[in-house]
């Protein structure tokens, strides 16, 4: 392995790599944000929804969670077009990842809410809080602390899943890397480098999660 040669090619390819990295980060960020917001609603519906709503949402989450992300990505790009919803690869990819993310976050939120003892709700009721107040001040903050570790995992999964968008032609980090490799033939070096960048992103997410966990920890 010729380090000097690799560094030279890396320098020449810096713009596409940075663009790919930027794309990967935007995809992940968007998918995580949209997926989390959707997921909170999914979790609420699973926990507190009236029966018909709960069943519909339950079918949604089970179906999505049981489907490979790649299938969702391909379906959202190739199938939605046939029913008149024409999305470009970027939009289709975000949609697929966000939907996938929402089903996971929904389950995490449901689990956290259901693990809070019933006495908490009763105590809140007993001092005269309405349900929205109970959720905002009593259940939500407790659920948030429980959700955090699992949410960080899901966020990291989303970053990894973003590589699948290369298949429908979104020029994210993996696709850019493959383009560079096809010109330079330095496959080992550049795959390794791309892997390193993914690791950095996920490491940052994990550190951020730890930081929030520490900040919100309840003294005992």
């Amino acid at each position, binding site marked *: 392995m010729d380090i000097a040669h690799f560094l030279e090619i890396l320098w020449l390819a810096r713009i596409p790599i940075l663009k790919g990295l930027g794309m990967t980060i935007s995809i992940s960020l968007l998918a995580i944000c949209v997926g989390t917001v959707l997921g909170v609603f999914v979790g609420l519906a699973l926990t507190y929804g009236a029966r018909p709503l709960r069943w519909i949402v339950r079918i949604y989450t089970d179906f999505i969670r049981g489907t490979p992300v790649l299938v969702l990505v391909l379906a959202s790009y190739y199938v939605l077009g046939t029913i008149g919803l024409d999305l470009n690869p970027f939009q289709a990819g975000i949609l697929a990842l966000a939907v996938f993310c929402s089903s996971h976050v929904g389950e995490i939120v449901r689990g956290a809410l259901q693990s809070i*003892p019933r*006495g*908490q709700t*009763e*105590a*809140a*009721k*007993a*001092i*005269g*809080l*309405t*349900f929205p*107040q109970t959720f905002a*001040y*009593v259940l939500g*903050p*407790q659920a948030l*602390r429980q959700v955090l570790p699992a949410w960080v995992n899901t966020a990291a999964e989303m970053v990894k899943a973003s590589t699948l968008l290369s298949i429908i032609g979104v020029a994210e980090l993996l696709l850019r890397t493959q383009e560079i490799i096809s010109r330079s033939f330095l496959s080992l070096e550049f795959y390794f480098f791309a892997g390193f960048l993914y690791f950095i992103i996920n490491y940052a997410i994990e550190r951020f999660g730890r930081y929030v966990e520490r900040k919100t920890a*309840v*003294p*005992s």
Partner: protein
Amino acid sequence: MTGNLLEIRDLHKSYGDVEVLKGVDCTMVQGDVISIIGSSGSGKTTMLRCINMLEEFQGGSIRIDGQEIGYETVGGQRRRKSEKEIARQRALTGMAFQQFNLFPHMSAARNVMLGLMKVKKLSKEEARSIAEKWLDRVGLRARADHFPGQLSGGQQQRVAIARAIAMNPKLMLFDEVTSALDPELVNEVLQVIKTLAQEGMSMLLVTHEMRFAYEVSNRVIFMNQGRIGEEGNPREMFHKPRTERLSEFLKTSSFN
């Protein structure tokens, strides 16, 4: 209306096919301290929980200060009041639970302040000063900024009592508040309740502490299989039970 603080008429409550309250009547006036005793499954806790609508009930009525709790009759149809109205009515009573149920993510002071700020709409400063006053009253002023996880069971229960009573309820409900406590912590909690009773707080206590019920209450209700088996003043009840069931119950309980 009568001057009764609490008026329960023919209260019926079932879980599915199982009827746990089979027509309970009970009245109390301002300043009454009533202990509800009886074996487990007799319906004591359920009755208490109906009073602040933590349980729904299918028949009968409960009035606090003349206000019908939980249900209204419109055009001959009995229906549940709006959630907002029920939430407002729940603030008429304060409740302390067997498991304390403090909010673990808030300091002791915050636990007390939450209802004052969100239900009574007091400012943070007002709420804080009321919280400190009540924490002081239960002997925990110095622990105001401790979290529940940093307090002993007895201390947690005292905070929970302060949280309920700071809301200035007309009636306090105590649901086996010492049952989850280590024996050496029971007394500090009972002492707090006793002081409140002496100051004229109206209260309804479900308890297994017979000695305490005897000392603190002016009336005792013995629940038996979903009905009131016997009621009267504690002296008569404990020394001269009129029914076979009560005398059996007292024999197996710790009162002696």
